[in-house]
């Protein structure tokens, strides 16, 4: 069996590793060692069932029903946003996976019946979204947007914000999307939007999202700003 040269140093760490009890730097070192050491890799696999057994040793308890209600209420809200996103994106782009990485600038006409869109100008990932993305919870400022629910849907490094019940901004103002990276002021994007008459909204977050920690939405004068003029209405923190 293949054994790495530094085996003696790491051999005892298998137990702490499967119990997730190694410090982060030691964990990284052990994982590098695992790549090269079959002996340790086999032992790690052999110890996992014992860790699973620990989880089964607890006294079985039933959670109260209201936890289920709270979880499912939020899941259903987010599922509606995901379904809406899937429906909108899938329809015109089905079967065009080869173009998934293509980004297009698009201007949406504001004259769609019943839809109030003021100059949504932004890059849109037209072929990127599949329905099996991740959802990122979006914090909503209850003062500026009471009763709003929002989620951000991630797929292949692209993100789309979806909201329900988002208030229409005052005349002359729009919502603007910003990218937050650590130790830097929020970076403005060209994604400007207003909700439809029914309060739903969709905004594609211009990528790439490398090193982006937060996606923020503020109300800004039409045309957008170079730095946020108000506190964010929506904040999505990326995992």
């Amino acid at each position, binding site marked *: 069996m293949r054994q790495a040269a530094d085996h003696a140093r790491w051999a005892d760490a298998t*137990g*702490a590793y499967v*119990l997730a009890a*190694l410090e982060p730097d030691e964990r990284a070192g052990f994982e590098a060692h695992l790549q090269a050491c079959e002996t340790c890799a086999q032992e790690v696999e052999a110890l996992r069932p014992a860790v699973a057994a*620990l989880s089964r040793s*607890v*006294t079985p308890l*039933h959670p109260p029903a209201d*936890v289920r209600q709270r979880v499912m209420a939020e899941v259903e809200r987010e599922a509606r946003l995901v379904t809406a996103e899937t429906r909108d994106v899938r329809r015109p782009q089905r079967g065009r996976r080869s173009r998934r990485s293509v980004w297009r600038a698009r201007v949406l006409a504001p004259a769609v019946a019943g839809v109030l869109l003021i100059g949504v100008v932004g890059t849109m990932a037209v072929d990127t979204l599949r329905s*099996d993305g991740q959802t990122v919870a979006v914090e909503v400022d209850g003062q500026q947007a009471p009763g709003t629910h929002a989620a951000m849907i991630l797929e292949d490094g692209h993100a789309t914000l979806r909201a329900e019940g988002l208030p229409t901004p005052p005349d002359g103002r729009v919502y603007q999307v910003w990218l937050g990276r650590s130790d830097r002021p929020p970076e403005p994007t060209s994604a400007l939007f207003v909700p439809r008459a029914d309060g739903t909204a969709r905004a594609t977050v211009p990528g790439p999202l490398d090193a982006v920690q937060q996606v923020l939405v503020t109300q800004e004068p039409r045309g957008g700003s170079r730095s946020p003029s108000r506190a964010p209405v929506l904040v999505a923190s990326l995992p």
Partner: protein
Amino acid sequence: MTPMEALEALGEEDLMQLVRTGDARAFEVVYDRHASAGYSLAYRMVGSRGGAEDVLQEAFLSLWRSRGRYDPSRGSVRMWVLGVVRNRAIDALRRSTVRPHVAQGSSDEHVEAADRTTAEAVRREDALAVRAALATLPADQGRALELAYFGGFTQTEIAQMLDTPVGTIKGRMRLGLRKLRDELGGAAVTG
């Protein structure tokens, strides 16, 4: 068969395919299958009902939001759920100023589940079997496993708490897990 019954009849893999597409009803079935195990673990770790409820809620929302990341080659849905519950419980313990000491197999009789189904009776039997196997471990090995798994402490923290070298703690964890696995034999592989 109602649509919900059809979902309930699905195997894990088919169910997770639906969850991945954002199907809330399919996720509800995942919740129903695994919430009790998650809650039991959370309660064991944080030691209070309110705390365990918060951990369970946060964990399931996190599971829903990261549904695209579930990888069946890395373990069962149950282990995926329990891994996230454990991480959330550790976060909760680290947030609280006083970390409760890891109680030995404690449980609050008021919330203890009655065996509603055969599956629950089997789970209870299984828990007793694992606890019996744990009891055969040398006390210092059992303590190291308890503190790491249920307490969420790192090996360095455990070494400090027990005033013992880190290398010794590492060895106890490894030996303890090996012995536990051997005690349980084939039964431990079903997790």
